[in-house]
């Protein structure tokens, strides 16, 4: 795995939701579990098994696979973590397939990039640009809006209710967030003091960092406010509010779904960041419209009990 982490990282959240990834994974499953197959190439296996569209057989292969498939070298850890994460959230029918699909995506993109490197050097793919030189590159808001709109539509077709939809969006955001966290931290350390990297361990500086620096690296500007809940017994709740959130800028949720906040995606990003920094929390998004800002959204962070206990033991 000599590939840069960012390029695989950026591909995964999208690719693992594409149906054809599932089929290619299935073919590799089968080739490793069927003993009497001749040493044919993967391509022919794929053709041979593609017609079988019986979902039960898919599931069976998927289950077998987790036993038979062996992942070489130190990527074991990464994949293990990821599939555990999938397993905790996804519904049971998808579970085996998604856990194994993430592994095949990694392998798939590795092969692909090796091929493209030798074939042509004419134009550098967006995903293959040098990691730290793209720091100030910006993405068109319109394209992002269309992409996110399709993500919402796609997800909406595959869920049973609003809370399920929010959970899925948050899950997608989590994938994005864990990568963004690594990228942002890395860039920060490289530009500040590469010899002595430093990380916040206290809660408040961490939250301020997320509200400020982290937000700025994702959305180009800081969040508008960071507050702590003043209600008694809810001292573990913090709120980050934005007046004009990026993702819901062009989305207005119909009345019958007023509970939904598509910013659940952002909540997922924040949750991943907090998780990665060692502050596990439950993060949700709520739309709190005001007269001037009809899209104003509050990201509610409810920190884990262990975090609050640790904070207390540190003292003030």
């Amino acid at each position, binding site marked *: 795995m000599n590939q840069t982490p960012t390029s695989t990282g950026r591909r995964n959240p999208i690719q693992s939701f594409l149906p054809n990834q599932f089929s290619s994974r299935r073919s590799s499953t089968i080739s490793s579990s069927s003993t009497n197959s001749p040493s044919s190439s993967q391509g022919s296996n794929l053709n041979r098994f593609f017609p079988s569209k019986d979902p039960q057989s898919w599931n069976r292969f998927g289950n077998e696979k987790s036993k038979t498939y062996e992942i070489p070298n130190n990527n074991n850890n990464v994949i293990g973590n990821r599939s555990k994460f999938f397993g905790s959230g996804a519904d049971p029918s998808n579970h085996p397939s998604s856990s194994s699909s993430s592994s095949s995506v990694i392998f798939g993109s590795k092969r692909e990039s090796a091929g493209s490197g030798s074939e042509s050097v004419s134009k550098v793919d967006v995903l293959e640009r040098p990691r730290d030189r793209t720091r100030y590159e910006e993405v068109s808001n*319109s394209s992002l*809006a*269309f992409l*996110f*709109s*399709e993500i*919402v*539509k796609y997800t*909406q077709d595959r869920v049973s209710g609003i809370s399920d939809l929010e959970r899925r969006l948050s899950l997608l955001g989590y994938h994005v967030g864990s990568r963004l966290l690594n990228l942002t931290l890395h860039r920060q350390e490289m530009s500040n003091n590469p010899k002595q990297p430093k990380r916040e361990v206290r809660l408040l500086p961490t939250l301020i960092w997320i509200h400020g620096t982290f937000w700025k690296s994702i959305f180009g500007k800081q969040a508008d406010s960071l507050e702590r809940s003043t209600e008694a017994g809810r001292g573990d709740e913090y709120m980050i509010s934005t007046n004009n959130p990026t993702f819901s800028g*062009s*989305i*207005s*949720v*119909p009345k019958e*779904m007023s509970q939904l906040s598509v910013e659940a995606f952002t909540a997922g990003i924040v949750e991943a960041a907090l998780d990665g920094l060692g502050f596990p929390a439950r993060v949700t998004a709520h739309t709190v419209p005001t007269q001037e800002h*009809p899209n104003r959204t509050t990201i509610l962070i409810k920190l884990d009990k262990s975090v609050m206990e640790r904070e207390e033991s540190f003292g003030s």
Partner: protein
Amino acid sequence: MSSLWIINKAGGLIYQAEHFTHPDPSVGRLSSNEYLVLAGTLHGIHAITSKLSPLQQHSKVNDTGLESLEADGFSLRVMVTLTGEFKREGEACSSSNLSLPSSSLPLPGTKFVLLTQPSHPRQATILQKCYEIYSDLVMKNPFYTSEMPIRVEAFDRAIESLLKR
């Protein structure tokens, strides 16, 4: 006084907003059904006017049909988006990237119709702005199905603030 209609490709009225004070609220209001009929008629008239020019067969430019209608009491302006499909001299030429089935009839784009008092100076600009808002708030909204009636709160708000200015 200004009123905006949006007519979809098939001639159905998918949006209608009125932003002016009626002198007498008890009379003069049309029912939503009557509006639908009017919009359908306008769609038909527009299709006819785009065929009227005798030189149309030979001209390189597509005739876009009715653009404005002036009357004593009001002025009507039509803007057609370029998302329709046109057929020119036997070759199928589509201005949109959508893979719509090519028919022998030209399929016009979405029509934005603005009704104002006569000699309103900024009709074309307002229509352009409406189109901009439409593409920002309606087409990027995952809860909107294209060609269907527009029920998007943010769009209502934006159009209102535009037309009331």
